[in-house]
């Protein structure tokens, strides 16, 4: 427990840990000190002077080093001759802060008057208008009229592209430096900088390509004015017109919490996602998301979304009714069948599919297939259910093996990097190529492509001894199934033998391909049966185009888009995307989280669980589920690891620090408050009982491993291709090692 300090702010006594800044101490008791440049996630710089307050400290007698007291025994407080910035001043014992004096009021008004002198006041066309800290603080503390002549206003460029995703309005920038500091302190892509001085001061990007970062979208959230806008949301809607729904990102194992902003739209005649914003979850993504999560949403209203079931007639796919489609699907599934399940579908869908496959005796596999080789190991020795990345620091070891954290789980990269760079955890990286994580590594191990398991086996099992916690992040790049399993088991053994297994902040962290790889594995586990090379009927549920599949006489594709795969199918069943339905995902660190319905359904498309249930009914399975919540209750009963979970539990929210997304937009930015639930991790096996080490057989690497090319963030895929803003960023060719 950190040492606590007592101080008084506006007559309220406050007790906060030593080192807390005055502005945060005030916030913790509900006193809002206005800020522009300060951001609770960034280091203070004291550049804007908006947070000026009157700070006094107890008078110390120089001779005795004792606090001087007046006749009533109260300490004598000495206030400085000038105001002090609350964002750079740490609290001290006995400090007295006054935020409501005439002097402070006048200072705030003056700072705002200066800022507005150069500000264009084009709020009507500014994307931040309506959720703008400068607007809000001007209304609260600013001068009511301007003493400057409007026509003499300083003018500057209004449409400066910083890369193709972010546009800068030079007039609107108030030079707070939040964007510059985010890029260098949090993302470590220091591609923004101030250029020139005085009124000519501007934000420039000097990377090539410009603003080269996976995290640039976050700067638009924390920019306290409308100076930075995204190509995606620019002029798309006014903030007050947007409806907000809590959701989850589906693109990687982190499971970032999102808020989907939707609005009516004439072209589609219905609701449409206008922008994707981060939703605060200090356990998962804090307040950040990567640009993939922010910009890939366009597939939800892509032209080729499936609206109706399609059946192949005379070589062409034609629309049909659900009645007919379900009957045909059921007829076909009577024959020997194989079901392949993609790992972006919700737990509820996967659970029903597993029950169904078991009931009819169909083969069942997960796609991509590789993670199923080691997901049980990752789960057994996973990080603790109370693990908190924020607690990782000095004394802890973070080991990254065969994974590219920034490419495969961008927000985990941010969090782990902070544990290393800001809090002093020791980073060891082992990989056959260089990754961004190598920049912070205290030790680097290299091996030949595909030899990760062999490298791991060659290490002494106790080489991590002495660390406080050991977090091992690993990936399956260029590994085949058995090598990946051998690697996971070897890493698990280090944790088990080193006594780390079952400790809250130690464990394995797998870099899975999608948002629900772990969940689909958990649901399918006991129903999985490998498919033969050929089968009569093949049912593909949300399976990517490049996944291998058995040959079949009749192919049923269940998807949200008319994908390349769907075009070749015999029967196409239209499913709803994550934005149009409810459900849960289990993230790579086993956190089960909920997403909610943000958009109305498209045509006659149905949620996957409904489709499975309707087919199952034709096999006389007695299911009558009305909603995912009921299916989840069944999961809790039948899947032992999920026994303690319920929609009620994972929907719980509690106050988070720092407080974000409320009225005080200037403090944290436009990130949304969490109203949809913080989710909950189910316990790792190691937390329940002691595990014995795995018996590892390291195989010779095979050529199959080479096919698992690096999983780059902007790799080509059916979803990213439908996002016009990101299309230019797609990496067509996989990285060769």
């Amino acid at each position, binding site marked *: 427990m950190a040492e606590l300090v007592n101080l008084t702010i506006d007559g309220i006594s406050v007790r906060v840990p030593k080192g807390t800044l005055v502005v945060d101490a005030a916030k913790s008791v509900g006193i809002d000190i206005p800020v522009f440049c300060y951001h609770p996630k960034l280091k203070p710089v004291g550049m804007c002077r908006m947070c000026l307050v009157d700070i006094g400290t107890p008078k110390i007698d120089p001779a005795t080093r004792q606090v001087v007291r007046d006749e009533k025994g109260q300490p004598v407080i000495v206030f400085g001759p000038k105001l002090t910035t609350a964002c750079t001043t740490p609290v001290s014992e006995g400090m007295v802060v006054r935020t409501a004096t005439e002097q402070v009021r006048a200072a705030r008004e003056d700072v705002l008057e200066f800022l507005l002198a150069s500000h264009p006041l084009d709020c009507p*066309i500014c994307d931040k208008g309506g959720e703008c800290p400068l607007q809000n603080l001007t209304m609260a503390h600013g001068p009511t009229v301007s003493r400057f002549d409007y026509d003499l206003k300083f003018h500057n460029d209004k449409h400066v592209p910083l890369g193709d995703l972010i546009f800068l309005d030079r007039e609107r920038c108030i030079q707070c430096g939040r964007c510059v500091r985010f890029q260098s302190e949090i993302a470590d892509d220091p591609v923004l900088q101030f250029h020139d001085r005085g009124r000519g001061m501007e934000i420039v990007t000097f990377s090539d390509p410009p603003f080269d970062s996976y995290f640039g979208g976050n700067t638009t959230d924390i920019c306290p004015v409308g100076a930075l806008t995204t190509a995606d949301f620019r002029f798309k809607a006014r903030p007050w017109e947007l409806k907000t729904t809590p959701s989850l990102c589906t693109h990687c194992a982190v499971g970032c919490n999102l808020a989907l902003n939707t609005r009516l739209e004439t072209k589609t005649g219905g609701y449409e996602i206008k922008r994707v914003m981060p939703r605060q979850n200090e356990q998962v993504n804090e307040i950040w998301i990567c640009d993939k999560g922010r910009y890939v949403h366009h597939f939800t209203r892509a032209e080729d979304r499936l609206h109706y079931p399609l059946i192949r007639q005379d070589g062409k796919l034609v629309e049909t009714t659900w009645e007919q489609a379900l009957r045909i699907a059921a007829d076909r599934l009577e024959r020997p069948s194989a079901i392949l399940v993609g790992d972006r579908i919700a737990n509820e869908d996967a659970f029903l599919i597993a029950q169904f496959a078991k009931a009819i005796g169909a083969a069942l596999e997960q796609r991509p297939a590789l993670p199923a080789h080691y997901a049980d190991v990752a789960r057994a020795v996973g990080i603790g259910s109370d693990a908190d990345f924020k607690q990782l620091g000095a004394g802890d070891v973070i080991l990254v093996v065969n994974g590219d954290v920034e490419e495969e789980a961008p927000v985990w990269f941010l969090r782990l990097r902070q544990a290393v760079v800001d809090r002093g955890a020791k980073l060891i990286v082992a990989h056959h190529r260089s990754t961004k994580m190598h920049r912070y590594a205290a030790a680097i191990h290299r091996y030949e492509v595909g030899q990760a398991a062999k490298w791991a086996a060659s290490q002494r099992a106790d080489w991590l001894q002495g660390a406080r916690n050991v977090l091992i992040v690993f990936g399956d790049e260029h590994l085949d199934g058995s090598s990946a399993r051998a690697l996971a088991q070897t890493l698990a053994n280090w944790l088990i033998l080193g006594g780390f297994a079952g400790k809250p902040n130690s464990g394995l962290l797998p870099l899975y391909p999608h948002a629900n790889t772990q969940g689909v594995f958990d649901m399918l586990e006991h129903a999985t049966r490998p498919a033969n090379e050929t089968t009569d009927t093949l049912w593909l549920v949300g399976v990517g185009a490049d996944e291998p599949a058995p040959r079949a006489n009749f192919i049923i594709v269940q998807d949200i888009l008319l994908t390349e795969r769907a075009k070749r199918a015999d029967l196409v069943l239209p499913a709803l995307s994550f934005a149009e339905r409810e459900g849960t995902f289990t993230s790579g660190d086993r956190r089960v989280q909920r997403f909610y319905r943000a958009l109305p359904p498209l045509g006659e498309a149905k949620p996957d669980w409904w489709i499975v249930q309707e087919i199952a009914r034709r096999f006389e399975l007695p299911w009558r589920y009305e909603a995912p919540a009921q299916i989840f209750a069944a999961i809790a009963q039948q899947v032992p690891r999920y026994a303690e979970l319920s929609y009620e539990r994972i929907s719980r929210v509690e106050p988070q620090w720092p407080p974000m997304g409320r009225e005080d937009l200037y403090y944290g930015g436009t990130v949304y408050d969490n109203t949809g639930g913080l989710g909950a991790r189910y316990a790792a096996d190691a937390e329940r009982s002691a595990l014995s080490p795995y018996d590892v057989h390291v195989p010779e690497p095979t050529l199959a491993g080479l096919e698992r090319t690096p999983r780059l963030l902007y790799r080509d895929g059916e979803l990213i291709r439908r996002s016009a803003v990101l299309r230019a960023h797609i990496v067509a060719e996989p990285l060769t090692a």
Partner: protein
Amino acid sequence: MQNFWEYLTKIPVGLATVFKTLFEKPVTIQYPEEKKPMSPRFRGRHQLKRYEDGLERCIGCALCAAACPADAIYVEAAENTNEERYSPGERYAKVYEINMLRCIFCGYCEDACPTNAIVLEPIEFPTGYTRESLIYTKSMLLEPPPPGVPGTPQQTPPGKYDRAILPFPPIDESV
């Protein structure tokens, strides 16, 4: 009994009024085919205004929609370029619709507009036989460009129309 006689004598009086009005000129008119002259200060339906150079005043800010108590206005904005410019500044209204069935002609939209683009004019109230026909689109609301001036979009020189909100012209006191 007395009431009955009184009743009988009143009937011709009432009928006299009926016959008298039967031959009078009616006061109702067949709106909208027939129209009555209106006061120049009458505030009827909206018009979207243009500048003298033909550019649209509306910058697609949707403040009118925000101010509208009847939620009658719908705006979708898009970005101007010098090659294809609709209004000064960066933003213009790509879609602008007023649902005349919802509108209560309060004039709040006019009040909210930062560019005086939407104005209730002495144009008679809209009429129609279907709901759809009473959703007025941008092309129905937009006033024609001044004579001899091109409409929108226009091709404009770079740098000339950087600002969305121009200083207002002096108020015409004569109206």
